[in-house]
Structures are given as structure tokens and as C-alpha cells.
């Protein structure tokens, strides 16, 4: 808040109009300073701002000059007080604001001191450098000059010596000649005079170099002070920035295709703009650099940037440089950021449920592995809209999750993939209803002669005979019995489902262990239990098979809708005529592991599985 604001601000003043007959005269010195002479004796509170004295309150006098009834007095006093309070509050507010401002000023003061200190240091260093360089240069030049002088003197001295020698030689010659001239012996004279004359002549022919060996002048090369100049110039220019510091990735700042990157300046550098570089980190970096991933660059002015158009669940290397008029800073350290994964895809046909739980399976949705998955569920309201109840299961390591639920409700369940960058968007939700037990059929166990309806709940055994060669047997398919297993949720407790058949279909329905022999018939071994219907021209026959044995039973009304009730805890598997609510038979067996519903057709026909039905009361033992 600016000081001006305070100065210019006006604190609201109690309106005087209509309150009292004794309207005060406003002071001529405005500036939010009101003084009220009140002949009646009643004074309003006034606030003085922008005076040298501190805020001044003029007390209110309670005497009431109202000429009317005494009640007016109380009434007006009450109003009076009522209006004081907001004004007082406002004042308090202003005081607080000013205190804040004062504190802020203090901070600024400290920062200025710091900055000054830094600048001073910087300057000292700079000039010191310059001075040092200059004195270095001086020393060099001085030394240079000295050496030049020395060499000149030496050469001159040399010359001098030579001259001296020449002089001496001449002298010797002349003396020799004179000696000879003075020689009395004419014969000797004649003998020696000619060589002497020759020598003298020769000597006289010699040119005497009278030029000076060296010049008298000293060379003064131009001093190269460019670097000193640069240094001095650089005092005036702002230095290039130092490398910025790139921050590590903040949680929840990334999306599937973007990353939010932040960095900060190492020091108080002036920066014009930043350049953020990024490139994907590839799994296998090839040896040669020709296939190196492409580097991309973004120019920003702020200390953060959101990079878009990235791949999901991918790692990127990022670094940033700062640039100002002087130049570019060195690059910051390289940081590794990761985009968030793509959302998973729930595999509808591989999910199953029962009143207490649901098993959800999904596809990762990402080619590379993710760290974990988060499963989210919310209960739908009675109207079918999402209610606020939400539960999250985190750190799911694989692409499936068994969730505990409450019976008789409906839930929306979705999954997110999670990596260091954060969680992905929610997958499309699946609706799970915890009424009864619900499962799909395991297509990969189906005998090749079985075909399935589109909704996956009716199986058909066609009339056409497929040749053996045309039948594609896989590891998991039934090969003799035209059968299929159901994907019952592996949860103990009670399960119930119904099977719809017609008058003539020969079928087997029941349960079997997951590893029941695929080349055997349902009920013929110890790993399966089933009810079998055989149709003869005259009647229906029924068997309840396990280990190839069945009790001897007759049933008079052919069931077209069979209820199957499995109770792990009691160790029972019961069959009912669902339309008549009639109990047909119960196997008693202690199941060693989880079982799967099994269905087979022994003659061409069809069979429909109905599930998601709450177990009727009559099926509960």
C-alpha cells in the first residue's frame, strides 16, 4: 500500500445530517481533519490523519441537548454508539495496514543494503582486476625498454672496439712504415718497402664503415591494451548470468502430454529470457549419435514453463539457460521429468463380483511399465447419480484388484495408472452391482464346437459336425466334453446362479476346479460336480455326477430353470428347480480350492446363464 493512499484516504466520518439539530461546522483545514465546535456540548468522535500528532480522538461527551423527550436521548445515544463501532473498526484496519507497510519497508531497506553490499563488492573486484592488469603491462614494457637499451649499448660498444682496433692497426702500420723509412740499410729498405706500401695501400682501400651500428632512437610499439579496455568496459556491462537451478518435478504437476517445469536463478542476475531444452530419454540409446533423440527448445520469460505435445508415461531430460544482453549462461543441471501415464482400460468381460466383493481386471494402457495403479470406487446414489462416497486403493502392483464391497449396492469403479509424474486420468468406469454373484464365461476354455452369444451368456452347440481338423484346440480348451467354465470370483461364502435350458437339451451344469481335466467329461472325475440331464424318447433322466458316480433319482417335472447354490463354508453344492422352488439334490464336499461354474451341452442345443440374482431364501440351508 502506498503512503499516498493513506494520505489521500479518507476515513469515513459519521454523517451528521439528520441526527442532530446542532450540526457542526466543518473545519476549514480539510485534509481529513475535522474539528467540531459544538455549542450543544455533544461532540462527535473525529479522526485526525496526516497531522504530526498521532491519531487523536476527541472524546465524546454524553450530555444530551435534545430539547425533545428523554427517550430521544437514549435512542440517539444508541444510534450514536452504533455508528462509532464501524468507524472504529475501519480505523483499526487502517492501523493494521500501516503496520504491515512499515514491516514491508523494513524488508526493502534490508534488501537494498544487501544489494548495495553486493554491488560494492562486485565493483571493487572489477577495478582491482583492471589495476592488476595495468601494472602487469607496465612491468612488461619497462623490462622491454631496458633490454632494448642494453642491446643498443652493446652493439655500439662493439662498434667502438672495432674502430679502436682499426685505429691500432693503422698506427702500427704507420710506425712500421716510418721505421722502414728511417732505415739506413738501403737493401733492407728496398726489401721491405714494397710489402709495406702494399699493405698500406690495401689498408687505405678498406672502407671504413662509419655508420652507427644501431639507431639512436628507441622503438615505441603501440601498447596492446585491448583486454584492459575490455575489462574496463565490462565494469559497465552486466555480466552474463550464471547457470539457473532447475527444480525437481513437483508431484501432480504433469499431465499425460505435458510437464510443468520450474527453475530459479542462482544469483541476482539480470535475465532477459530463458531457454528451456528438452528431449525424450529413450530406453535403448544406440551407440552412434545419428539416431539421438531430437532436442526441442522453448523460449520463456518466466521462471516456469509448461511443455506440451509430449508422449505419455515417458521420461524427459530438461535443462535451461538464461540469456541477457551480455550473453548466455551455462546450462543448468539436467533434470529428469516424467509425464503421467495414459489411463488404463478396464476389461469388462474379465470382471466378476459377488455380494461382498468385486474382482476388476484391466489393461495397463501404456506400452512401458508404470509404477502402480490406483483403484477408485464410488457408490451410486439411489437415483443413479454418483454419491460422494469415494474410496481409493493405492499401490496396486498388478493389473487386477479384489475389492471388498457391501451387499446390495451399486458402484462405479475406475482405475488410474501411476508413475513418478503422478496419476493418469481416470479410466472409463465399470458399473458393479453387488446383488448376487456375477461372472462371465471363460471363452478360452470353450470346446471349439461351442459358440457364444454376443452378450456372452448363452452358449450354442451347433448341428453341423465340424471335422476334427477344423477344430482349433488350445491348451485350455475342453477337447471331449463340449464344455466351458465360468469366471467365478475367488471369494468364499455363498454364490448362486441360474441356468436356463429347454425341454430336450442334454446338458451338464455344476462346478469344477480350474485345473479340471480338459480331456474328460464333467462329473466323470474327482475335480468336477454336476447335474446331468439325459433325454430318452420316453422320458427324462437325471444324474448328479462326481467321480463318475451318481445317486439314483427320479424327477417328475423337468426343470427348465436350474438354480445352482454353492456354499464354500458349508461345503455344499445344491441344485433347484427355480420355477417350482423345488430342491433337487445337494452334493456335500469340502472344496480344496476355489471352483468355477461349468456348463456343457451333450447334444446340439443351447443353454443360457443368468446371474446377478440374489440367492432366494429357499436356497439357503
Amino acid at each position: 500500500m502506498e503512503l499516498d493512499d493513506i494520505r489521500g484516504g479518507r476515513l469515513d466520518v459519521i454523517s451528521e445530517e439528520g441526527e442532530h439539530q446542532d450540526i457542526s461546522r466543518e473545519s476549514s483545514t480539510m485534509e481529513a481533519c475535522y474539528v467540531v465546535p459544538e455549542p450543544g456540548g455533544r461532540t462527535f468522535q473525529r479522526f485526525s490523519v496526516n497531522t504530526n500528532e498521532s491519531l487523536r480522538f476527541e472524546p465524546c461527551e454524553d450530555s444530551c441537548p435534545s430539547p425533545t423527550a428523554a427517550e430521544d436521548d437514549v435512542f440517539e445515544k444508541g444510534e450514536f454508539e452504533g455508528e462509532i463501532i464501524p468507524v472504529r473498526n475501519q480505523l483499526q484496519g487502517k492501523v493494521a495496514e500501516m503496520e504491515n507497510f512499515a514491516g514491508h519497508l523494513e524488508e526493502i531497506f534490508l534488501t537494498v543494503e544487501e544489494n548495495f553490499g553486493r554491488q560494492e563488492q562486485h565493483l571493487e573486484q572489477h577495478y582491482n582486476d583492471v589495476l592488476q592488469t595495468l601494472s602487469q603491462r607496465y612491468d612488461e614494457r619497462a623490462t622491454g625498454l631496458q633490454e632494448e637499451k642494453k642491446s643498443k649499448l652493446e652493439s655500439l660498444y662493439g662498434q667502438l672496439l672495432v674502430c679502436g682496433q682499426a685505429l691500432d692497426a693503422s698506427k702500427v702500420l704507420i710506425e712500421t712504415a716510418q721505421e722502414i723509412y728511417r732505415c739506413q740499410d738501403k737493401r733492407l729498405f728496398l726489401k721491405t718497402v714494397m710489402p709495406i706500401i702494399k699493405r698500406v695501400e690495401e689498408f687505405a682501400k678498406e672502407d671504413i664503415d662509419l655508420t652507427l651500428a644501431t639507431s639512436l632512437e628507441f622503438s615505441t610499439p603501440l601498447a596492446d591494451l585491448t583486454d584492459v579496455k575490455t575489462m574496463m568496459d565490462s565494469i559497465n556491462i552486466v555480466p552474463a548470468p550464471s547457470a539457473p537451478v532447475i527444480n525437481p518435478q513437483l508431484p501432480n504437476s504433469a499431465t499425460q502430454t505435458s510437464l510443468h517445469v520450474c527453475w530459479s536463478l542462482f544469483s541476482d542476475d539480470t535475465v532477459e529470457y530463458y531457454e528451456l531444452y528438452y528431449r525424450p530419454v529413450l530406453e535403448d540409446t544406440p551407440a552412434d549419435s545419428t539416431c539421438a533423440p531430437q532436442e526441442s527448445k522453448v523460449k520463456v520469460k518466466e521462471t516456469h514453463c509448461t511443455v506440451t505435445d509430449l508422449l505419455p508415461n515417458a521420461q524427459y531430460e530438461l535443462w535451461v539457460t538464461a540469456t541477457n544482453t551480455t550473453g548466455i549462461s551455462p546450462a543448468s543441471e539436467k533434470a529428469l521429468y516424467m509425464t503421467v501415464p495414459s489411463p488404463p482400460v478396464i476389461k469388462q468381460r474379465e470382471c466378476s463380483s459377488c455380494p461382498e466383493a468385486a474382482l476388476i481386471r484391466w489393461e495397463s494402457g501404456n506400452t512401458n511399465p508404470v509404477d502402480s495403479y490406483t483403484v477408485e470406487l464410488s457408490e451410486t446414489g439411489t437415483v443413479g447419480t454418483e454419491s460422494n462416497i469415494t474410496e481409493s486403493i493405492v499401490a496396486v502392483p498388478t493389473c487386477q484388484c479384489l475389492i471388498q464391497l457391501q451387499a446390495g449396492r451399486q458402484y462405479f469403479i475406475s482405475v488410474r495408472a501411476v508413475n513418478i509424474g503422478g496419476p493418469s486420468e481416470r479410466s472409463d468406469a465399470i458399473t458393479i452391482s453387488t446383488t448376487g454373484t456375477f461372472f462371465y464365461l471363460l471363452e478360452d476354455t470353450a470346446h471349439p464346437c461351442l459358440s457364444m452369444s454376443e452378450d456372452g451368456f448363452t452358449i450354442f452347440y451347433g448341428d453341423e459336425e465340424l471335422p476334427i481338423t477344423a477344430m482349433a484346440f488350445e491348451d485350455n480348451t475342453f477337447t471331449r466334453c463340449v464344455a466351458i467354465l465360468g469366471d467365478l470370483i475367488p471369494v468364499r461364502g455363498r454364490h448362486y446362479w441360474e441356468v436356463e435350458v429347454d425341454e430336450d437339451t442334454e446338458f451338464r451344469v455344476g462346478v469344477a476346479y480350474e485345473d479340471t481335466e480338459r480331456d474328460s467329461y464333467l462329473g466323470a472325475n474327482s475335480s468336477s460336480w454336476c447335474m446331468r440331464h439325459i433325454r430318452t424318447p420316453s422320458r427324462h433322466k437325471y444324474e448328479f455326477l462326481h467321480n463318475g458316480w451318481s445317486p439314483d433319482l427320479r424327477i417328475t417335472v423337468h426343470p427348465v430353470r436350474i438354480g445352482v447354490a454353492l456354499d464354500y463354508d458349508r461345503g455344499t453344492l445344491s441344485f433347484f428347480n427355480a420355477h417350482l422352488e423345488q430342491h433337487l439334490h445337494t452334493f456335500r464336499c469340502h472344496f480344496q480350492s476355489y471352483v468355477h461354474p461349468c456348463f456343457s451341452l451333450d447334444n446340439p442345443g443351447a443353454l443360457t446363464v443368468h446371474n446377478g440374482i440374489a440367492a432366494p431364501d429357499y436356497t439357503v440351508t
Partner: protein
Amino acid sequence: MALTQVSSNKCAGGFQKVFEHDSTELKCKMKFAVFLPPKAETGKCPVFYWLSGLTCTEQNFITKAGSQLAAAEHGIIIVAPDTSPRGCSIEGEDETWDFGTGAGFYVDATQDPWKTNYRMYSYVTEELPKLINSNFPTDPDRMSISGHSMGGHGALICALKNPGKYKAYDATVLAGSYSGPQLDILIDQGRDDQFLSASQLLPDNLISVCSEKKIPVVFRLQPGYDHSYFFIYSFMNDHIKHHAKYLNA
């Protein structure tokens, strides 16, 4: 309508009692057995009527069939009457084991000298229920009928002739031309039953008629079992449970 208690034994948490009374239908003193489960002390219970086979009295069932534990568990009163009027001094009544004394066949005789006393059908369907309902903590709307051998026949004919009266039915004999509320019949037959091998019992006929008439029956042939109370004992639990499903619904 006065009842005299003949015996009472604590059994399976409840009481196995035998009563005697003067029967108006049969014009003689008749005994019947009543099992009262623990639940009868505090509330009303449904009633399961058991009709015994040839030569039996009210004693055979309560000592040999092992019904009390299951009845106590499901809170059901079991009434087991005698199989015929006794001490009526009718000529010829003791001549054969399968006619006369101990062989009432649960029908009302139409000829002399039997027709005065031999009215077991009326006794079982009218007099006895009235007597039971006024003297014991019963739920008069919930009763079922069951039996062995001749009693099975009796159970069936009582049920078929009184559609809707009995909540659950059990029989070993021919079904008639029944039309009424849906039945749910459970039949056990010992495979080694001498009467079966002697073709005195004809379950196949029953089954085929019921198949035709769409009367729901589950008929179980139990290997190794005979006609005796050992056989009855072995499957009594299943039958009481079958009845309890409807009586306690």
C-alpha cells in the same frame, strides 16, 4: 376331549410325550405321541403329522426313527398317531397283519362291521388336528403330513384329497388326479426293500403319473437300504428339513 398324559420324557431339549383320549370318530380310546420342541415353550410351532406303517403303534416312530433332534432344531411339533382303532372287539380284526388292527390304511371304511370304528381318514384329517390345536401351542395354519409305507399312502391321500390343507407332502403311493396348489413331494425308497423287490411297492407308477400330471416329485432310490426304521432313521433329517422349508417359511 380330555387328554390324559401317559408318558413324558425329556428328549433333544424338548419333550416326547404320549397322550390318551376318547376318540369320537373311532369310538375307542386312542393314544398318540407328541414331540414338543424347546421353541414350544415360548411360542407357537407348526405341526408335522407322521403316519406309521402296518403293524406299528404310536411307539415305533418315537423310539426308532430319530426325529426328535431335527424337530427340535427346526422348531416343529411332531404328532404320530396310532395306525388303527384298538380294542374294538371286531371279529377278524386280528387275523392278518395287513388288515384290521394296526392296518387302518388311513381310510374311512364303508362296510360293516368296520365302518363304525375304522375311520382313520377322518380321525387323522379332522379330529386329531382339532385336538392338537386346542391342547398344544400350535400354529393351525401350518401343518404338513408324512409317513412310511402304509403311512406314506395315508399321507399322500390326505394331502391329495385336501388341497391346500397341508403345506408339505410326502408319499410312497399312487398319486391321484390331483389339481390344487402346487405340491413338492420328496420320496425315499430303500433299494433293498423287500416289498419293492416283491413288487408290492410300485414307485414307478407314481413317478410316471406325477411326470404326466406335472406334480413335482423328487424320488431317491437309496442303495443298500431296506424297509425298516433303520432306513427311516437315516433319512428322517432330510425329510424334516424338507418340511421345515415350508412350515417355517
